[in-house]
């Protein structure tokens, strides 16, 4: 018995993977059904849905980028303090002192890439008519996810607390705050009060919006399966 077979035959291996290696048809089906990550997929899909020329892989890339952002984001949270006296200094430290000095770069460029990949994903779904029945509701969920992506990027833009970030956010939020009664004169004033803004954006960026996005992503993926695949009538 070879070492490989002995591992495959051990109690530990069999307790994790409940079927033999996916080399024949039966076990290729089982691997998808019995694995938490893989079971996001159906067992079999139409051949054209495999072609990158059809899907552009943009939905998958968006999901992947969300994971990259989550991981780099958690790592960044170890170094960053959302207060007026520390935020900018922590940025300098991240750039000059912290090892793995590309963390912030990966996080920032990944965020830009995610905005682009979400838009391209929507573009593909529209052009293939994949929002048509029975997928109307999943398109709505997708639009909500697009908005959340923009909000995630927007709230994150403020955190470096440099000239670029505060003025970009000022321009953006001033437009929203110009709304009569609810803006400068009303609740908008308190939500965006100078000293607290940084902390509020930080909590929104690191906890509130990602949780909501993760929830909606779960719904989005589940509905793809329930609606019978990525496109085409049922």
């Amino acid at each position, binding site marked *: 018995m070879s070492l490989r077979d002995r591992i495959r035959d051990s109690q530990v291996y069999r307790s994790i993977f409940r079927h033999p290696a996916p080399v024949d048809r039966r076990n290729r089906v089982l691997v998808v059904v019995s694995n938490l990550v893989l079971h996001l997929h159906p067992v079999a899909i139409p051949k054209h849905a495999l072609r990158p020329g059809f899907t552009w892989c943009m939905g998958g890339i968006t999901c992947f980028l969300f994971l990259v952002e989550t991981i780099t984001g958690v790592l960044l949270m170890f170094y960053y303090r959302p207060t007026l006296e520390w935020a900018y200094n922590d940025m300098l430290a991240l750039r000059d002192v912290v090892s793995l000095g590309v963390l912030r770069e990966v996080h920032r460029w990944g965020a830009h890439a995610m905005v682009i990949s979400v838009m391209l994903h929507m573009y593909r779904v529209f052009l293939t008519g994949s*929002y048509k029945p029975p997928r109307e509701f999943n398109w709505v969920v997708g639009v909500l996810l697009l908005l959340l992506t923009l909000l995630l990027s927007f709230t994150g833009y403020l955190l470096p607390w440099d000239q670029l970030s505060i003025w970009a956010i000022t321009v953006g939020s001033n437009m929203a705050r110009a709304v009569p009664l609810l803006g400068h004169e009303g609740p908008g004033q308190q939500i965006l009060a100078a000293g607290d803004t940084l902390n509020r954006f930080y909590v929104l960026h690191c906890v509130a919006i990602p949780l909501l996005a993760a929830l909606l992503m779960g719904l989005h993926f589940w509905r793809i399966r329930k609606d019978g695949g990525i496109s085409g009538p049922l």
Partner: protein
Amino acid sequence: MYGNEHEFLERIAGPMGWFYLSACAVNLLAAGRALRGRRPQRAGAWGAVGLTFAVLGWRAFDGNPAAMPEACKDAIDAVLGPVTFTLGSFLILWGLYLGRRVFVRPAVAFAGLNVSLLFLGLSLTDAQFAAVVIQPDNVPIVAMVYLLALFTWLSASAAVKNDRRLGQGLAPAEKDQAEKALVWPDLVYTELICMILASAVLLIWSLSVQAPLEQPANPAVTPNPSKAPWYFVGLQELLVFSDAWIVGVVVPCLIAFGLMAIPYLDPNPQGSGYYTIRQRPFAYGVFQFGFLLLWVLLILVGTFMRGPNWGFFGLYEVRDPHKVLALGNVKLSEYFWTIWLGRGVPQVAADAGSLAQFGHILWREIAGVTLVGLYFVALPPLLGRTLLRRLRAQMGFGRFTLMAVLLLAMMTLPLKMILRWTMNLSYVVSMPECFFNL
């Protein structure tokens, strides 16, 4: 900005060389492909283009990258204005749409790519152009333009192919591949490769471009211009044409609502699950108009052409904060009362009651209010009887009216632009007393 011309050229020469070398490599690959496909003439053409790029690359590595002639730059800047840029892009996209059968041919599309690469390369030696385009936060926008071009071409060529098949009574190509494949191994491996490629691109990007970090935040020093993050710059650009809260609240809500409503407002059962233009020209046209022209193009204008005081600057023009800007500030009420009726805008006594004041405001703005009312109330049924008769019959009254109102709301944007350029019109309805300007 850069210290002096020489220093700037030295900094940019190396990256330019790599840029041209990549362009050369892409062309040589295309030439190889053409050779294998037994098309020697085409292979020769791409080979020649590749050699040209190689020469340009060699010059760049030598510290003397080829530059666009000054006369050429001046001509481009002179022609480029808000009107010509917007209308020109519209006409180009319209032309591409009409001639799509020609433009989706790989050779034609590839030639277009080469022209754009040459333009980018020659322009990057201009310090002003480079300062805007190579700004770290603007790199993704350049990438987005190329990705959009690639995917628009890819989808259009699939659509043209399908439309030809549909015309012959065949099913679209996607239906021919309807038989199932197992997710393991086919899809899982595609995803793995895709993930590795995406990680590689992200890592190379992160290692070569540093994330921007400017001076510490200082509320006392306002940069001129202050720009929103790039994906909201399109909305910021709208500030030129409308009020802040309309642009910052009403328009985003309308866009989000309109996008979510699309599946419920598209009664066409055809074109589900495959690329086609012929079976859904209306949906295709409206979406491309809204996405490419009103969303992406405004982002490009806001990012690349807006300078100090939100003035419009050519691509190579020095961003002079003292440039004199034309103001568009004639209200429709002023046109109506003063210029057309010749009797002056009605005034109201300051001590009049609030109801009287409100009535007066309405009377002052009567022309604009009527116009907007007619636009949103009378146009939908009119469209339903004339241009969009088929849709009206398919959709029923409620859905059609909602669709028409959303469509008309989207069209207010280009209409407002045209009115601004031709009549210097600031607002159709202007009621600053009630925070309401349209």
